[in-house]
Structures are given as C-alpha cells and as structure tokens.
C-alpha cells in the first residue's frame, strides 16, 4: 500500500483540505472542509478514516450536504417525493419530471451512526414504542415525528410485500402520524412453474410473466400519482429519458466497481465504495451532480490503477461483503484487519443493473424492481453473490447482520450454507450495531482471524501446488 493513500483522520483532513485549496482545488457550491459537518452534528466523522483524494472530498461533501440541499430545493419550490424501500426504481420515474426531486427517507437509518447523540430521532422512535429491537431504520420514524432532518415530502411512496417486516411496520407508523403513503405491491419473486411463461430479468434471474404484469400495473399507478403530484405528464418518452439518465449513473458505477474490486492493489477504500454504490438508488437527490461526483471518483481510481498504487497491500486477502452496515466505521475495519474489498451486495444490486432501454419503460422498470435479490429467495441471492464473488476472486465472505432486521435472523444462515457449499471459502457472520465502538475489539478480532485464515489457506494451497510440482518433475526430467 502506498502510504500517501492510507485513509486519513478528520484532523488529517483539515490539513489535507488546506493543501488542496492551496493547490487550486475548485469546489462545487456544497464543497468545503469536512470539519464543518462535524460542527453541524455529524460527529461520527471524527472516528472514521477517509480517503484523502479531492474526489473523495467531493463524494463526502455531496453525501453530507444532502439534507441541506433538500431544504434548499423545497424552499425554492421543488416538489419532493419520498420514495421508501424500493431502492432504485421510483426515483428513476420521479427524476424524469421537471422540478421534482426524489430521496429515500430510509437514509435516516444512518442518523444514529453519523450524528450519534446529536439526533433525537432514536429517542423519538423509542417514545413511539419502536425500540432497539427494530432495525436502525426506526430513526426514520423519529425523523418524521420530530422534523429537523429532511423536509417532509409532498408525496410518499412505499413498496411492500416481499419487503422486510420492520421497515413496513415502521412506515405504517409514519402513515399513522399523518403522512399519507401510496403503498405499492412488490410480490415475492418466485420461480416460474413448469410451462409457465417467464421473463428474464436484468441480472439473470427469472420471474413469471404474471408477476411482472402485477408490478407493471403497480408502477403505472405510481406513475399516475407522480403525474398528479407534479402536475405534468410522465409519458413513455419522458420515462425513457429518465431511464437513459439513470443508466448513465449505473454505467459509471459498473466501471468503478470493476476497477476497484478487481485491480491490484485495491485503489479505493471500502468505505468510499459503499457510499458510491449508495448513490445509485436516488442519485443523492441530484441526478446531474452525481454524474460529476462519480466521474471524478472514477478518474481518481483510474489514475491509481495506472500507477499501480492503492489503499491496501498488493495481494491482500480478498473479502466479499454482504449487507450494508449500520455504522460506517465497520468499513474501515476491512482494510484495518488486513483485507481488501473485492465485491459487495449492499441490498441494492438491482439499482446497479442497467435498465433495459429496448422495452416499454414501465415494463423495463417492473423487471428491474423484480430483479432485486431481496424480493426473492435467499437461494437466489446467494447465487448472485457467489457469481460475483467467484468472478472477483473472493477468498472470504462476511455477512453483516443488521440488528433487528427481520430478514437477517434466518437469511444469514441460509446464505452462509449456500455460499460455503458453492465456493468453498470461509464465511463469517457478524452483527454491526449503529455505533460499534463497544464491539470494535470483537469485530476486529473476528475479521483479523478471518484474514489470517485466508492467508493460511493460501500458503497451504501454494505448498500443495509445490509438492505436486515436485512430484511430477522427476517424471518430466526422466522423459
């Protein structure tokens, strides 16, 4: 690893920022020193290690300025759509309209981490009976109840059906607080019956045509609601343009993922990669700016790969990560434990797939929505995880449980069994709380042990290969 690329602390970022400014750094309107976000309440930044590039500075500022940008947009008369749970489909539709911005209130699930005690969202959720046996997304309920975070959108949509119970139940409580929600059904994606007409989805999974038809009907209903709200037509031409723009973002991310996850050494830390991938779902509320942010990040990664420098030692053990983490600090532990990230499934894989542009737009969006691995079986999800893990040479896999999430209780063991059977790599299941400080020694120990296991397996494999070569050589020599 190049020392100059080692992730840096916030204090180091204060100096780094001054250096960049002295060197002529040009910033967007939302730019500035990261320290100001801490002053604004995002105290977790003081515990994180962040990539020290100008591109990562822009990424962080883009992420951390989202609330302020949403408030500014709302004040300027922009219509806000709060899209819940679907992670990547409805924003494509909403952003196809003029003067409309979509965002995920679900993103409040990081408030307990990023703001720690500076946010009362969790306390408010507690008072409403949604305690810490629920997923950290309960902060969303607190955010709606107390205000003081994102502006309340004028239209709320929420996908339900094959979705996690806790989110659905919390969203229902949001509605009870007086925020009407347009609920739309995302059915469980089952395998087609023998002889049943089936559709190939983006990503390679299959679904019955009848299920796609249901989702198509539901998305049409959402489309009409968006039209009513925005006072504009959302015809196929506009939707097609929206899909094309979304695909621009997805292509950037595809290239970023290819370079970051496959290059040696790893050119970008796991923390920045998770944030970058999250941009896919709603463009961090700015569909135009996100392209600039991701292009800068991609250019930085290209520079590093051409110079063969990175943030982890060459040959570091390769780990595949499953599920987003409630505490961003956990992503630092990947490199700190000796690993480099070689792939991830942050529960938004369908937001990374290209949306077909050769189909009627609503049909294309219905297929993308159904391609979400989370709406099908754990076996389907495991198959996709294994495919990417194998492609990227994963030597270990970590399943990061989300505390209180209804799917994690059983899904973890289902995934672990499938992956172990298919890939023959060690699998570890950990749980990452919203603030992991008290658990950090335990988590670090487990990850370090996993990295050591990988290295031991490598040595054993190399020794076995050497022995085999030595066994064969006398015969070759004699020939």
């Amino acid at each position, binding site marked *: 690893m190049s020392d100059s690329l080692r992730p840096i602390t916030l204090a180091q970022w204060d100096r780094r920022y001054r250096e960049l400014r002295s060197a002529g750094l040009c910033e967007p309107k939302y730019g500035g020193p990261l320290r100001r976000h801490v002053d604004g309440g995002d105290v977790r930044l003081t515990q994180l290690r962040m990539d020290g590039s100008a591109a990562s500075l822009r990424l962080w500022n883009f992420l951390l300025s989202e609330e302020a940008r949403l408030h500014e947009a709302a004040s300027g008369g922009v219509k806000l759509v709060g899209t819940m749970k679907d992670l990547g489909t409805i924003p494509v539709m909403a952003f196809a309209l003029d003067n409309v911005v979509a965002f995920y209130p679900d993103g409040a699930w990081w408030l307990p981490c990023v703001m720690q005690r500076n946010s009362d969202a969790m306390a408010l959720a507690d008072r409403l009976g949604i305690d810490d046996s629920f997923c950290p997304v309960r902060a969303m309920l607190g955010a709606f109840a107390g205000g003081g975070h994102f502006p309340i959108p004028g239209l709320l949509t929420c996908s339900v059906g094959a979705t996690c119970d806790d989110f659905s139940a*919390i969203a229902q409580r949001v509605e009870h607080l007086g925020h009407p929600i347009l609920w739309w059904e995302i*059915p469980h994606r089952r395998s087609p019956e023998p002889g049943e007409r089936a559709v190939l989805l983006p990503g390679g999974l299959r679904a019955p045509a009848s299920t796609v038809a249901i989702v198509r009907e539901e998305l049409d209903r959402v489309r009409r609601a968006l039209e009513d709200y925005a006072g504009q037509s959302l015809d196929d031409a506009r939707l097609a343009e929206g899909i094309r723009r979304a695909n621009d973002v997805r292509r950037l991310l595809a290239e970023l993922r290819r370079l970051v996850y496959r290059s040696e050494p790893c050119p970008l830390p796991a923390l920045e990669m998770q944030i970058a991938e999250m941009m896919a779902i709603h463009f961090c509320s700015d569909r135009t700016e996100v392209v600039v942010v991701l292009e800068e990040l991609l250019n930085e990664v290209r520079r590093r790969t051409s110079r063969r420098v990175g943030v982890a030692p060459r040959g570091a053990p390769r780990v595949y990560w499953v599920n987003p983490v409630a505490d961003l600090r956990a992503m630092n532990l990947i490199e700190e434990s000796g690993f480099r990230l070689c792939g991830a499934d942050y529960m938004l894989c369908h937001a990374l797939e290209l949306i077909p542009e050769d189909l009627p737009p609503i049909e294309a969006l219905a297929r993308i929505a159904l391609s979400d691995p989370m709406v099908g079986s754990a*076996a389907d999800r495991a198959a996709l995880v294994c495919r990417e893990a194998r492609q990227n040479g994963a030597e270990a896999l970590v399943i990061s449980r989300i505390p*209180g999430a209804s*799917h994690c209780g059983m899904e973890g063991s289902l995934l672990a069994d499938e992956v172990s059977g298919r890939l023959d790599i060690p699998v570890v299941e950990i749980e990452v709380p919203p603030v992991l400080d008290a658990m950090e020694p335990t988590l670090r120990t487990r990850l370090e042990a996993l990295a050591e296991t990988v290295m031991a397996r490598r040595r054993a494999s190399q020794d076995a290969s050497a022995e085999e070569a030595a066994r064969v050589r006398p015969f070759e020599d004699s020939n």
Partner: protein
Amino acid sequence: MISGPACHAAAYWHPLVPPEWIAASGLRPRWIRLRSEGRPAAAGLRRGVCPFAAGMLEADIGDAAALILTTTCDQMRYAAGMVASRRPGGLFLFNIPHTWQTAASRSLYRQELERLGAFLKSCGGREPTPGALAEQMRRYDAARADARRRCEMLSAVDAAALLAAVRGDLTATRAYAEDASARNPAGRQTLCETPSLGPSADGLLGPNEPSESGLRLAIVGGPLLADDPLLSAVELRGGRVVLDASEGGVRTLPVPLDPARLAADPLNALVDAYFDGFPDPFRRPNERFYEWLGEAIVARRVQAILLHRYLWCDTWHAESDRLRQWSPVPVLELESVDINGAFDGRKVGRLDAFLEMLR
C-alpha cells in the same frame, strides 16, 4: 409427489388460505396449531428469529402431502426458504399481497389460489370444479356461522379449539360433515339439527356455557399455541375472554358468503370472503384492523385488551404503542420469547396486576 387416492392432507397455518379450496381439491385441510414442546425451541432463541416462525420449521405435519406457508411476514417468507432446503417437495409458498385495495393485489391473490389448486392437484388432489367448490364453501360457511354462535357460549380454550376445527377437515367433525345444503334451503346448520355428537370438536358442540361474570377481555395478536396457557390463565383469574382476536380467533374468519355471488362465480366469491377487508396489521394500509377491532370491542362489550405477541415479531410489536393510544379500553402487552408454553412469573405477575387494576 404422493400419488394414489385423493385423501391426503394439506397442512397450512395462515387464515388467508381457504380450507374449502383445499377440500374442493380433494385433499383434507389440516390447520396447523403449534404446541409447546416443553422445552425451548433452539431456533426460537436465535437473535432476530420469531419463535413462532422457528417453531413452524419444526412443526409436525404428520402424513400431510403438502405444506402451505405464506408471505404474510418476512420471517415466514424466509422460514419457507429453510423448509424448502429440508423438504424440497410438497411445499407451497402462497404469495399473499400486503396491499389490498387495488385490482392488482386482488388479482394476485386469485392467481395464487389458482396456482395453489394446480399444486394440490400435483399432490394427489384434483382440479376443483365450480360445483365442488361452491359445495365446500357452503359447508364451511355454515360451520363457521355455527361456530361463531357457539363460541359465545364456550370457554376461551374450547372456543379456540372449535374455531380450529372449522378451519380443518370438516369430515373429522361429525356435526359439520354432512352436506349443509341438504339440511335447509339456506344451507345453514343449526344446533337443533345437529346429529349425535362425536369426538374431538364434536364435544364442543354441546352446551357448556361459561359464567357470565368476570371481566370481559379481548385477546389480540398473533397466533396462540394450541396449548397456550394464556387463555386458561385468564379464566382462572376471574377474567372471561369474550373476544378472541388472535390469529386463530374470530377476527380472521372470512366474512359470510354472498349466496348470489357464490352462485355466479364461486372462486370470486371465495376471494370476496377471504381477501376483501381481512383485518390484520400486516396489510397496507392496516386501518381495516382498527375498524374491525373497534366494532368488535363495542359488540362484545370488551373491558380490556391483552395484546399477545412474539419476540421479534415486528408486525405486532410496531402496533402495540398505537393500539394503546387508540384503544378505548386498557391494554396489557404480553410478549412470548419462545414457544415452550411457559407462563412465566413475569407474565403471571403482570396479568394479575392488570386484572386487579381493572376490578
């Protein structure tokens, strides 16, 4: 798949699976009621796993040729994945929509019924004809009407058993086994026409009126175990469960059939009865649950509510605070952390204190 005579059972646990559809397909409906094992279910103690869903993984379905699980909660959806890995054949995951007010969701429910029918046929059943379906629907409708009347006169434990019986194989309960349409033109059986009683649920069809005294309580929540001590514990302490709004109680019985709709299109009538207006908090939106409960509280003169839920059941847990805020009567929340059936000291103490407060 099992072949041979169409006399096999299909086991199911969720009230939105119509037993009459199973019966019309030529299989015997078997309503699953978990029983306590007298020991903690190991998976039920796993962090984040609902003990009831974990219990379903270990459920003994006997010789049933088919097991029907549903997508009404995420825990069960993933439990189905675990069952599928252990029991590849004979499992049907019924895709039940969470939305209910749209044509799409209703259509999905009907499609799933048809798919279930095809599955049951592959398990040794037959394709239900409209006539066979209508007959089974009349039979079950009459049995439910009779059970509703009788429940008001039975202890909570006996009422729960009777309601379980009318969700299962009616041929196993002599009183309900005969062709309802042969009894009277309205197709309804009445107590005075009941033949001599047989075993099991038949024993509940005789007069056994509980005392009219005692606090009038409602039990609301998820599924109770077949041998759940809660019901008897309430009655031993002078309470009287006048409304069983648990998952196996009257709340989840389908609405009475519309005879005209039944004659015209039995399958649509089945969808009407089951799907439209099913009052449960898992539905989105779930206002129908509160509407139903509000009416039932008035009709049954309920004085207090016992909310029973399982640890890690987000659906009921999330509603507990709202229920308390909404309810016109006091609410006590009782959480079950496993399914070993223990009515532990904590629950006993809380129940005693609650009942004492109410007197």
